[in-house]
């Protein structure tokens, strides 16, 4: 009898623990919901002006759907998008779905269709699940482009790609060239050995350095894998330092690896310097030009510029300057001219933002609070 009582109590405790888990998710949800609500307000304010403007100038309405609310990276994308549309005198609608799911985005797409927007730019949460909703939008005459994450090519006109493999590889190998002074040993600290992005970037670095005599003085001694795990990345970094006493540069094209390596190098006061791809907020502590910091500069893409490119692309699509075909080109304001290039599998087109954005001692303070 006593046992039964105890087990009931315990079940209750377990249930309570589960509920506690749910409760905190629940409490964070309203916070997430509040963001779209805030965004919705300016959109509503904008709506009447659109109605007023529409009969006269036929000004278009440009919509952006981000991945989810509550992420500073998405906010920056939206900021860039809004800036361009406002400057062009168009109407801008920005929607942050409450959750980073395809379902939440489908609901948003459908409401935008009924609002009769001219274009939708979307950072897709799923490559396939949005197809039907986007097709419906296209049938309604809405121009569609994607940014940040693509959908299957026949569901959109084109894709604003923040990280062309070639551009990332070029930026990284140039950084290695610069930091070694043109010759010497460097090593790469990657994520896992199967990580698609990292492998593509590393292959591109290798191809570029083999194909150009400029990089002949560089010697890649090893590609180590830290499995995106601080402990293993630390072990691997220490091993690299020990195995190659003449090592000059470590290049870590992964956010966890670069932070772990930065800590090892900085703690040891090592003369080896670091570059790669990292999150500004994680790396602020380690970025600096002097010997007390381990990373002179590193890269990632600039979400504001990505938002701006998506805005210019939307405008070009709506104006009929481009259709989404490979070879189309347009001018993206002060960002310069862009040409649509074909995807590797030949299924559609993409627009590559450009070389990744450099974070250095001058701008890191501004970016570390962003993402």
């Amino acid at each position, binding site marked *: 009898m006593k046992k039964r009582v105890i087990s009931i109590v315990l079940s209750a405790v377990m249930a309570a623990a589960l509920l506690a888990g749910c409760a905190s998710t629940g409490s964070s949800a309203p916070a997430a919901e509040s963001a779209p609500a805030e965004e919705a307000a300016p959109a509503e304010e904008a709506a009447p002006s659109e109605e007023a403007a529409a009969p006269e100038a036929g000004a278009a309405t440009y919509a952006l759907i981000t991945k989810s609310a509550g992420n500073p990276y998405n906010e920056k994308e939206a900021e860039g998008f809004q800036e361009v549309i406002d400057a062009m005198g168009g109407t801008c609608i920005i929607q942050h779905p409450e959750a980073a799911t395809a379902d939440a985005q489908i609901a948003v797409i459908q409401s935008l269709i009924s609002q009769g927007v001219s274009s939708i730019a979307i950072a897709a949460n799923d490559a396939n699940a949005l197809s039907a909703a986007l097709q419906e939008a296209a049938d309604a005459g809405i121009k569609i482009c994607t940014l940040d994450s693509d959908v299957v090519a026949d569901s959109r006109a084109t894709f604003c790609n923040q990280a062309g493999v070639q551009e990332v590889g070029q930026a990284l190998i140039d950084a290695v060239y610069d930091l070694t002074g043109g010759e010497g040993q460097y090593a790469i600290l990657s994520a896992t050995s199967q990580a698609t992005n990292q492998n593509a970037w590393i292959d591109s670095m290798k191809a570029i350095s083999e194909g150009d005599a400029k990089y002949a003085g560089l010697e890649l001694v090893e590609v180590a894998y830290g499995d995106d*795990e*601080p402990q293993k990345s630390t072990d691997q970094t220490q091993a690299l330092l020990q195995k190659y006493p003449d090592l000059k540069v470590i290049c870590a094209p992964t956010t966890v690896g670069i932070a772990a390596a930065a800590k090892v190098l900085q703690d040891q006061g090592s003369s080896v310097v670091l570059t790669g791809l990292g999150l500004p907020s994680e790396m*602020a502590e*380690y970025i600096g030009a002097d010997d007390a910091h381990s990373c002179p500069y590193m890269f990632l893409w600039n979400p504001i510029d990505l938002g701006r490119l998506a805005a210019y692309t939307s405008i070009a699509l709506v104006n009929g300057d481009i259709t989404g075909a490979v070879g189309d080109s347009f001018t993206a304001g002060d960002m310069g001219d862009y040409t649509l290039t074909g995807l590797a599998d030949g299924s559609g087109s993409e627009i590559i933002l450009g070389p990744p954005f450099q974070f250095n001692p001058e701008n890191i303070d501004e970016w570390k609070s962003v993402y």
Partner: protein
Amino acid sequence: MKEKSLWKKITGSREVSLVIVLIVLLAAVQTLSPSFLTATNIAQIFRNNALTMLMALGMLCVMLTGGIDISITSTLAFSGMTIGLLQKYDILHNTFLLFLIGAVIGLICGSINGMIVAKGKVAPIICTMGFMYIWRGMAYVISNNAWASGQDVAGFSDFGKDGAIGPYIILIIAYIIFFVVMKWTKFGRQIYAVGSNKEAAAISGINVKKTITSVYAIMGMLAGLAGVLSVSIYASAQPNMQYGKEMDVIAACVIGGVSMSGGRGTVVGTFLGALIIAIIAKALPLVGISSIAQNFVKGVIILAVVVLNVITQRTMDKQNLSRREI
């Protein structure tokens, strides 16, 4: 019978055979990478594996009662993330208090585990599997999927910085306490008694449920401490930190001769087991084994040592039996 042959002496004690394994391993690594045994390297071995070594002590107690706890790295992440966030939002920066909070969070998590296993009679692997998801999930929820980064924990991370003595002090104190408790106290002997034979322990007046609850609580507390230590050593808190590392802790215990069915295992053995795991982790990238083959080699070494353990154990049992024969 008093003059045991050298061979019997060697095979007669698990700890001695582990020391031999350790020496063989070190000799092999030293040959392949002559600069291995340096003061810096040895210090790094302990520092990089401080978490595994610390948690192995708790796992020893849990496994001695015949249980297992696979929720430890989730507890670690929950505790580590909490103290990371406390600093990120400038609520608390006192190193001692942060450690205390981490330990208390772990203690609470572990106690819940213990009560459910002891009083609810849920199989330990099932119960702790549930909490493995729950605490890990909580770490994601409280962090809102973001990190507490190097600059958030600046100052606090000096405690575990390369070259700082903090992690070593914690390890030394923990191992001394556990060595004394397991060997010379009533509580230590109760844990062994419960693991060897629950019914007999209960009959002899040991509160079995209390003992079992306590070992999970201790395990949780160590995992909580390890979470704080992890944030200090790696200068960042991520909700997915140490994901999957509970297996290293269990492997350390198993290599150290701790029986999965309970009642058998020592603090010295656990220390040696954890040290072997640590040396493997440190040596594999150094000796020139290609990155993609490292996990394979690690698995082979673990299995080889465990098989050796089993053989040693059999020899011991046989010797004990033959001593009893008249």
